[in-house]
């Protein structure tokens, strides 16, 4: 038997050198990658959406969002990903897949997507202004606020994003193969305000 474990590698490995970049000493926003998350695609079986949401609420304390939004309890979050479809997020210790399988047998089709998306957190006073260069949707706080989520496109890259606090903080996820291109778009967009990269 060779080496027992393989090392996991981020698609952005080598790109996220901590430091300050761009204008203004890099204080506009901070960018960091959200690593180590379990991602699951949760699809409700026909006619079972309500039952599935109830089962999940029972197990995790939050229901599934029924519109483009995010519900979260601790490190577990559910993000609307289309009608009858959610992205389940958990930390590696949440054991999300097994808990879902046990709480909702026959109610959902689940596929493991861990590692298939790169998620970047953007936080700071210029986050909203900068994000408007990337995505063609309205992020004004009256329209898109903490708990909101959307599927859209940034420079030809399909993305999913959601807001996690009022700073504001956004998390933007793209398919893994697009990570470097998305990172380049983000850093170009935020250079005007200055950004820091956090480990």
């Amino acid at each position, binding site marked *: 038997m060779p080496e027992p474990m393989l090392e996991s590698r981020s698609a952005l490995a080598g790109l996220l050198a901590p430091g300050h970049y761009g204008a203004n000493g890099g204080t506009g926003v901070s960018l960091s990658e959200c690593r180590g998350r379990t991602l699951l695609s949760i699809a409700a079986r026909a006619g079972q959406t309500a039952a599935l949401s109830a089962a999940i609420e029972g197990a995790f304390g939050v229901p599934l969002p029924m519109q483009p939004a995010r519900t979260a309890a601790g490190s577990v979050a559910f993000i609307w990903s289309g009608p009858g479809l959610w992205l389940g997020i958990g930390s590696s210790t949440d054991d999300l897949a097994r808990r879902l399988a046990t709480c909702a047998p026959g109610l959902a089709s689940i596929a493991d997507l861990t590692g298939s998306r790169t998620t970047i957190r953007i936080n700071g006073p210029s986050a909203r202004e900068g994000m408007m260069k990337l995505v063609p949707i309205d992020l004004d706080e009256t329209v898109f606020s903490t708990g909101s989520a959307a599927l859209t496109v940034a420079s030809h890259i*399909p993305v999913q994003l959601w807001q996690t606090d009022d700073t504001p903080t956004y998390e933007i996820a793209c398919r893994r193969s697009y990570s470097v291109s998305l990172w380049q778009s983000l850093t170009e967009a935020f250079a005007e305000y200055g950004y820091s990269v956090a480990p």
Partner: protein
Amino acid sequence: MRLPCPHCGERGNEEFVFLGSADPVRPADSEAPIEDWIDYVFLRDNPAGANRELWHHTYGCRSWIVVRRDTRTHEILGAEPARSLPPPASTSAAK
């Protein structure tokens, strides 16, 4: 151009892929008269005015939606998810 996705809200048309008219109904099965098939696959009303058309929210929720739109003015007259529409004849046959 802005299209109202029934799930995601109003979005720019760059997020969508257009397929064509939503009117043609797939014949009940492959043994249906060949004329019906030619009609379904190739012939279109192509109206100047209200048109029911299929769009796919490719960069959004990936739903197929039926949009009613005026082809002269581009005015949007309505939109609904394709899957909520009464099933076309062929579904029963496929079942």
